[in-house]
């Protein structure tokens, strides 16, 4: 399937749970006075479906050996992860408004050992997939059935290290590993198509030995369908999730200016909450 034939992600409406998670993101953004709004909003459904429907995990026992591992390689999208983890009870929701503040454990990029439920400290791009490869190999040695999910940004996969990791995943036929690309089409400076085009993206992953799925990354049913099981033929899986940067806040959608924002005035925060109810 090529990009042109993909459904327009924004054409699907958000349910109350997706809106609630986004309200949590806005609250954290407001509390911290800054954050990667666009990069977090595009990720919400991906992280939500993983934690709601796909992964085995125990919020009261974050290091439970049998858990599936989720590595947010695009660490700057952490507000989406924080919202889902708080919602699941990994830590109190009240902590969200302390995002990025002195003394909080919720930094602008997630840190393992600080935030309950965070597997790896990320933020420097292009690290997560290699860590995921190592974790999947380790789990294989332990005869564990646990799966490993790594979410990356589209700009992030400009990093050569991602493709080193992809080669290794293909070589070792890591069927327990699933790479997710949050393909929101916008990186920091501007549109992916202009800064560093990625197409043909599915072909690239396929060439590296992955079973590739290409879906609307805001479509819950599609996410559940492709993430439910590992590849039947034993290949690692790559899921290219077509998403909308800033999804849920119409005035921020598809606007590179909303990749990261700081010092957002109170009236604009109010507008964000209001706008969220219209989508």
């Amino acid at each position, binding site marked *: 399937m090529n990009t042109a034939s993909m459904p327009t992600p924004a054409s699907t409406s958000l349910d109350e749970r997706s809106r609630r998670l986004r309200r949590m993101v806005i609250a954290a953004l407001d509390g911290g006075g800054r954050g990667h709004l666009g990069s977090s909003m595009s990720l919400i459904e991906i992280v939500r479906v993983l934690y709601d429907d796909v992964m085995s995990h125990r919020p009261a026992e974050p290091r439970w050996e049998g858990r599936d591992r989720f590595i947010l390689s695009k660490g700057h999208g952490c507000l989406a992860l924080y919202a889902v983890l708080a919602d699941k009870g990994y830590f109190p929701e009240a902590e969200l408004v302390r995002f990025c503040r002195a003394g909080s454990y919720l930094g602008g990029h997630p840190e393992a050992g600080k935030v309950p439920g965070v597997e*790896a*400290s990320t933020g420097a791009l292009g690290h997560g997939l290699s*860590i995921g490869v190592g974790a*999947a190999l380790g789990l294989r040695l*332990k005869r564990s059935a646990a799966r490993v999910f790594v979410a990356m940004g589209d700009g992030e996969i400009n990093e050569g*290290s991602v493709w*080193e990791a992809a080669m290794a995943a293909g070589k070792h036929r890591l069927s327990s590993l699933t790479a997710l690309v949050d393909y929101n089409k916008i990186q920091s400076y501007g549109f992916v198509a202009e800064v560093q085009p990625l197409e043909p993206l599915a072909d690239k992953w396929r060439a590296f030995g992955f079973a590739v799925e290409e879906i609307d990354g805001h479509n819950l049913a599609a996410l559940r369908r492709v993430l439910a099981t590992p590849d039947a033929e034993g290949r690692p899986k790559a899921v290219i999730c077509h998403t909308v940067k800033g999804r849920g806040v119409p005035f921020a959608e598809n606007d590179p200016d909303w990749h990261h924002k700081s010092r957002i005035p109170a009236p604009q925060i109010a507008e964000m909450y209001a706008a969220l109810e219209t989508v």
Partner: protein
Amino acid sequence: MRKTSLDMVFELARRDPRVVFIGSDLGVGTLDGMKKELPERFFMEGVAEQNVIGMAAGMAMEGFIPYVNTIATFLTRRCYEQVAIDLCLHKLPVRLIGSGGGMVYAPLGPTHLAVEDIAIMRALPNMTVVAVSDAAEMTRLMGQSLDWPGPLYIRLGKGGDRVISRPDDDFCIGRAILRRPPGAVLVVATGIATTQALEAADTLAAEGIACGVLHMHTVKPLDVAALRAQMDGVRLLVTVEEHTIVGGLGAAVLEALADGDLAPPRIRRLGIPDAFVKDYGSQEHLLAGFGLDAAGIARTIRAGLSQ
């Protein structure tokens, strides 16, 4: 030294199921025995150092103790961010075995010389940096490496280096070994530079100059207590390392001396000047050129005393 360290990885892997080996496209036949006997825990990956380090981190997160080996400069410089973030920030028990530390690969030129590895590894929190003097000492280090907390960088010499260590050294990571008690002069050296320093001390002893040698195999954490214990009566302190003078052993010693108000009247740092190495030839040739051989060290000490 390299053979000993890799043989020890195999030995440790036999002993402990947590041990895995990861190489990055090493020479034919490397650890064939382990590959045959423990194939599941032997990984020979491609020329992809960033991935190798990240992969080692992921395995360590799952409870394994990865020993990673490739050429020192690629193991430190090429994947520095992975070492910093994936290993050091997470404080994971990954062991980096850097082949050809210093100017071992003299004929291959500056792309292959690891002459700032100690400096850049030392700058990272949680990292331990060790450069032993010979294969026998390597065996002792490897035995202790298994349960060392956090990441560990092991700098290898060429191999076939003269054995100067002794079984009764009581080798301990982080604890310097006094090879010769100081007189007016104390030399602090690391790696195979200690061997050269001892030879220089022999030469000088015959000339009536009492010269101590402190073997600082662990550059980080630096054994400041051992340094302090030897400073009484020292008029000239000389540091020797097969490494740039920027940020390595000499710098670490100066920092410790300054922080502890321990500085002796005179200090000389022997190392590679702050420039890329221009010549080829043998390691010995380059060492002599930089005054890092026994004769050069003795020269520096004589000059230091007479000034």
